[in-house]
């Protein structure tokens, strides 16, 4: 039996008591590769906020098992406008992933710097370490943010549409990288529009719509929703 990390039971999510998603139940186990798919406005971002503990549930519960806390998720947020021309070196950004570990201490210690260095090498961006973030390509920027996320947590990554705005080569590259991380034992939760990639890489799929589907990829392909969603995508 795999170890469970997150159990979500009959949760209702939304803002100001107005539910966007209701009766949501799913489980994330260690080593899973969960894709969360759904239309725009279906509530994917709300779910992300709830998983991170930034948006309280209206009802139901999200339970964290083992030694993982919501603040120990390696979160890869969507890029903001501010970041596009931010004067910071790759090293500074990756190191900032260790912030929650440093607590009130004003400076980073040796162990944290080593963590940052390790993750920079792991993602193959060591030669960019002194480069300025704004001078990097989209794909390189995402690698930097991914390295930062790994500094915050090395067990569970939550990726919010990590391939948005990337060219096809960088996209394929990013997927391959995430897949490798997953193979090395990191649990992945990915928010995405890309059903093709979902079908290719996911172990489990959570489809948020009027009717919520949760299950393994194999079950999803057989399900009515899965067929409809995949077919409509194919027609575009």
């Amino acid at each position, binding site marked *: 039996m795999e170890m469970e990390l997150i159990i979500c039971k009959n949760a209702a999510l939304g803002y100001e008591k107005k539910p966007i998603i209701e009766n949501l139940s799913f489980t994330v186990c260690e080593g899973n590769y969960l894709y969360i798919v759904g239309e725009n406005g279906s509530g994917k971002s709300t779910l992300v906020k709830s998983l*991170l503990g*930034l948006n309280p549930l209206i009802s139901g519960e999200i339970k964290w098992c083992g030694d993982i*806390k*919501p*603040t*120990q*998720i390696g*979160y890869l*947020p969507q890029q*903001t*406008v*501010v*970041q596009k021309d*931010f*004067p*910071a*070196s790759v*090293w*500074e*950004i990756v190191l*900032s*992933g260790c*912030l*929650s570990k*440093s607590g009130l201490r*004003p*400076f*980073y210690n040796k162990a944290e710097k080593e963590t940052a260095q390790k993750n920079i090498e792991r993602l193959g961006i060591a030669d960019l370490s*002194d*480069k*300025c973030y704004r*001078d990097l390509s989209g794909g390189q920027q995402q690698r930097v*943010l991914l390295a*930062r*996320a790994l500094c*915050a947590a090395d067990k569970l990554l939550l990726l919010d549409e990590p391939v948005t705005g990337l060219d096809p080569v960088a996209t394929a590259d990013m997927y391959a990288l995430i897949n490798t991380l997953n193979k090395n034992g990191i649990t992945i939760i990915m928010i995405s529009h890309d059903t093709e990639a979902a079908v290719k890489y996911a172990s489990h799929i959570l489809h948020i719509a009027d009717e919520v589907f949760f299950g393994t990829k194999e079950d999803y392909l057989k399900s009515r929703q899965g067929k409809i969603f995949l077919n409509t995508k194919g027609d575009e």
Partner: protein
Amino acid sequence: MLEKLFDYLEFPFVRYAIIVGVLIALCSSLLGVTLVLKRFSFIGDGLSHVAFGAIAIASVFNLTSKMILVLPITVLSAVLLLRTGQNTKIKGDAAIAMISVTSLAFGYLLMNIFSTSANMSGDVCSTLFGSTSILTLQTYEVNLCIVLSIAVLFVFVFFYNKIFSVTFDENFAKATGTNVELYNLIIAVIIAAIIVLAMNLVGSLLISALVIFPALSAMRIFKSFKTVVIFSAILSVFCAICGMIISILCGTPVGSTIVAADALAFFICCLIGGNKR
């Protein structure tokens, strides 16, 4: 030329002015980087107008130490403005514009109605452009300025990593358990304190320049957050000293001379940065 300068430096009020000027330039440039990157460049402008309004109120009540009233009011406005940044009916920039013109108008109105001094327009002009007030500093004002500057420096260094993280990516910082609201509050309070201090130096109309120019100049050339912060601090202090010396020697208004020096430095940095790319 140099002799004239040393003659002037004999006077304590000139030395005070230079000490205060350097400290203010240093503090304002440190947070300038954060403000520019957070797209809050105009907050300095807005807050300084609030401070102007507060000074008007303080004059009406004939308070001997205007700081007692001006500092809390400005800090409060800063907190409110940074808070309304995200999700409110009136968006950040509109809120700043609204508050700044309102306090400017009410400040002038109050000064006009309850004016106690004979030279009203002179008072208003020096509050807006800080023309002479830097040279008329009292000892306690200099001390207050030194204490506040040290506090600002200490807070900035102590929270440097947090400020960086909150500036670069608020969502990530929040998700990993950083108390983003607290650090935004700290940033707001420091900014307000700096603005109140800087009113003496460049007056309320020109403060934004002191806050944003060094940061923008440094961002043209340097490629990491740390070097940008350090260079903008050095540049700001350098421009402030040059501006003050020129204004002493040539009799030009202090505030505008410093800002002119900052603007010139920005263009030089643009040229250097442009060639590098």
